[in-house]
């Protein structure tokens, strides 16, 4: 038997089953995450609105992308409607808050509402597979978009609706620095939630459905239930993300939640790494920062080749497309995979080839 190196670092011996099922595999990893969290938590001390707003948006999109990762990465169901669920969450939270319910409660409630809607739109998943399902979710995208434009009572129709500022005992989350903590809280809760999910019964069931639904069913897994549940869980996260987004902007308008957003969410998880919890955040960061980085790149290019100054806007867009393509060609399994491979070869060095 050829030894397949364990993706887990060597020299790490566990003495209990509990230790074998931890989220983070090594103390170093735990440390790294802690330090990362601490850095983000301290960010308001060092950075201005720009960096903070980027962190906030990465967190928000990361939560929603994480939801999509549960659906697509874990359960293997591609969704082209995630952007609409994200939007639904934003509207739902704004609507709930406008009924006098505190925003901090409205956010999870919006998540639950979105979950319910997601499960309704997930019903076709009981019968549909693969791309047929993907296109059915495209239908949910358009149906929801239409609903947003139409349901005046709920969304304010095409004008959109105002989302109140979150507050807790009079403490207003009305600056980026403050809002960052609210988002950070949800990031931690959701990411730990999904990490836990993937090491427990229902999470395994979802992955089993993805990998081999026929045998999963024979192992006692109710396919219909888990396929729809997976839509539910994923929409829950989309709803939370959307709610946070709505209250961050203070205003929710239907036009932000188009198919393009859905596609961006897909891009996030594919680039971050399908099925990878931390990849969702990385992917969100990548997709969010890429156009900005390309902006800088295009401008720099224009100073060297002045002839293209006219085209910087296009060059920027083109390079976003090109970056996605290059990324996939060079690292089709996602950022997280790259990271793991790097780590694996460090550990194996000098024994790797």
């Amino acid at each position, binding site marked *: 038997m050829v030894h397949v190196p364990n993706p887990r670092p060597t020299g790490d011996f566990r003495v209990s089953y509990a230790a074998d099922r931890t989220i983070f595999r090594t103390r170093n990893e735990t440390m790294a995450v802690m330090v990362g969290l601490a850095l983000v938590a301290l960010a308001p001390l060092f950075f201005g609105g720009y960096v903070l707003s980027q962190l906030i948006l990465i967190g928000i999109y990361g939560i929603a992308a994480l939801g999509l990762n549960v659906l697509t990465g874990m359960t293997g169901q591609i969704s082209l409607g995630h952007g609409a669920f994200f939007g639904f969450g934003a509207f739902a939270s704004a609507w709930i808050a406008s009924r006098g319910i505190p925003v901090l409660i409205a956010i999870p409630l919006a998540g639950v509402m979105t979950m319910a809607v997601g499960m309704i739109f997930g019903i076709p998943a009981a019968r549909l597979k693969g791309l047929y399902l993907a296109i059915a979710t495209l239908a949910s995208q358009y149906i929801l978009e239409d609903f947003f*434009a139409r349901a005046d009572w709920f969304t304010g129709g095409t004008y959109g609706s105002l989302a109140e500022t979150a507050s807790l005992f009079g403490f207003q989350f009305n600056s980026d620095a403050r809002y960052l903590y609210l988002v950070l809280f949800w990031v931690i809760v959701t990411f730990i939630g999904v990490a836990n999910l993937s090491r427990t019964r229902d999470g395994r069931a979802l992955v089993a459905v993805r990998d081999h639904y026929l045998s999963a069913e024979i192992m006692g897994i109710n396919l219909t239930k888990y396929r729809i549940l997976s839509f539910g869980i994923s929409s829950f996260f989309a709803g939370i993300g959307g709610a946070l987004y709505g209250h961050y902007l203070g205003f929710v308008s239907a036009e932000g939640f188009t198919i393009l957003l859905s596609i961006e969410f897909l*891009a996030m998880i594919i680039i971050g790494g399908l099925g990878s919890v931390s990849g969702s955040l990385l992917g969100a960061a990548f997709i969010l920062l890429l156009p900005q980085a390309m902006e800088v790149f295009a401008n720099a290019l224009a100073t060297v080749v002045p002839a293209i100054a006219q085209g910087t806007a296009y060059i920027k867009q083109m390079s*976003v497309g090109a970056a996605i393509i290059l990324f996939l060609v060079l690292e089709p399994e996602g950022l997280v995979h790259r990271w793991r491979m790097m780590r694996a070869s460090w550990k194996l060095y000098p024994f790797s080839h």
Partner: protein
Amino acid sequence: MNTSLLVQLLVNGAIVGMLYGIVAMCFVLIYKSTQVVNFAQGEFVVLGAWVCLSLVVSMGLPFWLAFLFSLVFMMLFGILVQVVLLRPLVGEPVISVIMATIGLSIFMRSTMNWIFGNNAVRFPQVFDTATVQIAGLNVETAYIMSLVLSLFVMGLFFWFFQYSRWGLAMRATAWNQQIAQSLGISVGRVFAMAWAISAVVSGIAGVVIGLVSAVSNSLAIIGIKVFPAVIVGGLDSIVGAIIGGLTIGILENLAEFVDGQYLHVGNMYSVAPFYVLLIILMIKPYGLFGTPDIERV
């Protein structure tokens, strides 16, 4: 009930649906041979239109010549895309390839914006009579051209997949690239052919659409609009694509009729096909003509 309006709408639906059918066929072609859903399909369509238009307008070529040249161009473009983008991705998960087509669509869209601008530009008059009357409805001649072409292309595709050696090879590649390779099929060549053919047919569709509604980059939306058509017909069925296209075309118009005459809720035209899509899929999970997956353990 306003029968003559209904009839006109139905005729319109059938004719526009035929065009959806052609674009849908391009999807099916790519899907059948590579299992990839091409999100840049709409951009392919628009590219074909732009190329033909600029050959006519800036080079002053006669339309038919320009049309031919643009099809040749599209073929080369399809191959180029394959070589640059898809060949390196051979063997990668399908979802990565799909994502790459999304990247491609972003890239193409901005490049075309740059080169061709983002205005709507009309074709100079091509046909002597711009419209013909069918059942009381004025229909652009270009559509008639597309109708003839699409029937022809459909027949060709059907034969191709059913009987030709390369058609078989494409289906095998879609099933499993490793298996296809083991049979001596050059997966790269299959991809190149599929993309070239699909690009050419998209080009045809693009020129027709351009003749009818002026060329502009936002026409690329058709790439997403035909998804329901593809699915209703069944992802892997050429005939299904045409029927799906017709179904969606007629549905849109029917929805417009019901909405315009009775409901007045607005937007039914764009949304109704999606409701119907869901209903059809709930009854027939593989569309009307799609082949069910093999479920064997």
